[in-house]
């Protein structure tokens, strides 16, 4: 049994998110922590990973020395392709994303608010990375999960209301950090699970948004498989 309390925070998030992925689904993973999610999935699940640049069925990094510039993920990192993979152009790729064909997208975030609005494409006056495919992904995917570290420089990224420009008017379905699993619902932001070795009080102290807390909030069960 692994000691999850000493696990790297990013790995905790990636592993917890991996439990949300259904067999045979079509999934888009964003850059950063979301990319780590595929390492926690069993290949027998038959999940196809899609990238904005038109790969349906991305595989792990090719063997050393066998990388090729014609096959990368959306971050420009060399990847391979799984058996059954296909290639589509960018218009078709965003048709999959926007047209309701993508089962799940996992993205990073700068802020998520109590209603589930995500902000992840610009910090006015400071840094403007641009939205890339994020606006289409959040608007079009059947399910949206935000996977991110709970705080940045000691400041909660879970806020009452986004102060940064939002990515979409569509609310995300689940927020997974190293401290908590949260779900925006009609009556507020529900705390569903706490991180390994983390108490409800610690989550509340680290979170600017108000949380709806049930009687018995379980700890993430990272030992199970999806």
């Amino acid at each position: 049994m692994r000691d999850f309390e000493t696990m790297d925070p990013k790995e905790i998030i990636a592993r917890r998110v991996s439990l949300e992925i259904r067999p045979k689904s079509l999934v888009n993973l964003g850059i950063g922590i979301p990319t780590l999610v595929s390492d926690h999935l069993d290949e027998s699940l038959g999940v196809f990973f899609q990238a904005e640049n038109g790969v349906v069925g991305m595989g792990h990094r090719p063997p050393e020395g066998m990388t090729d510039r014609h096959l990368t993920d959306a971050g420009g990192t060399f990847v391979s392709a799984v058996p059954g993979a296909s290639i589509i152009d960018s218009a078709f790729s965003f048709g999959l994303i926007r047209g309701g064909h993508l089962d799940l997208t996992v993205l990073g975030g700068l802020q998520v608010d109590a209603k589930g609005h995500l902000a992840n494409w610009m910090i006015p006056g400071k840094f403007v990375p641009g939205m890339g495919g994020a606006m289409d992904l959040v608007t079009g995917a059947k399910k949206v999960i935000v996977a991110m570290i709970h705080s940045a420089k000691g400041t909660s990224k879970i806020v009452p209301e986004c102060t940064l420009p939002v990515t979409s008017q569509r609310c995300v379905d689940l927020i997974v950090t190293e401290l908590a699993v949260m779900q925006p619902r009609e009556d507020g932001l529900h705390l569903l699970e706490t991180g390994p070795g983390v108490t409800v009080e610690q989550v509340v102290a680290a979170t600017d948004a108000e949380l709806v807390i049930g009687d018995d909030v379980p700890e993430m069960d990272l030992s199970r498989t999806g």
Partner: protein
Amino acid sequence: MHQAISMQEAVEMIPDGARVMLSGFMGVGTPDGIVRALAESGKRDLTMIVNDAARPHTGVGPLVSAGCVKKFIGSHIGVNPVVQEKMQAGELEVELVPQGTFVERIRAAGMGLGGILTPTGLGTLIAEGKQTVEVEGKTYLLEPPLRADFALIAARSCDYVGNLAYMLSATNFNPIMALAGDVVIAEPEEIVPIGVIPPDAVKTPGVLVDHVIKRAM
């Protein structure tokens, strides 16, 4: 039948101030030879329509670094610090477009459509000042077509009539942009006899390609 032109001839065709569509995704599927040649030629005031700003030395990067670009229209500029600097300094105008909207606007231009209706961007900064349209009870943003004077295309293979085939994720924006430039210039990795690219494998019919750049020997 095409007669391939030299890199020099291709560069001379593109005047200062042109609107240029450049394919590629983080520099993958970008015609690097003509980007380099344009940067060295000292072109000025180009409007570059390209998905992302890639890095300083890849994709459209060399053109921005060389000061050839007045305006960038695309979806992502997060990993090119030169673009960030020039934008903050007011030397480069940046118009950000969500990637799915970006490619669909280009497709609309190439397919003879008057624009697209998309839910992407509703309720965000992107929607400011734009018309919304209601269809069957759903609201959409009206986004206009996006066309260019030139489309610069990177192909894996090109045959003597200009039929193009692409490879894996280097396909990306190439087949779409090849429809939306007034003048389409292809930079293939190889030129092959007619028949080597089977009809089913042709992604851009040669009738769309105006010029093919000769491979360096």
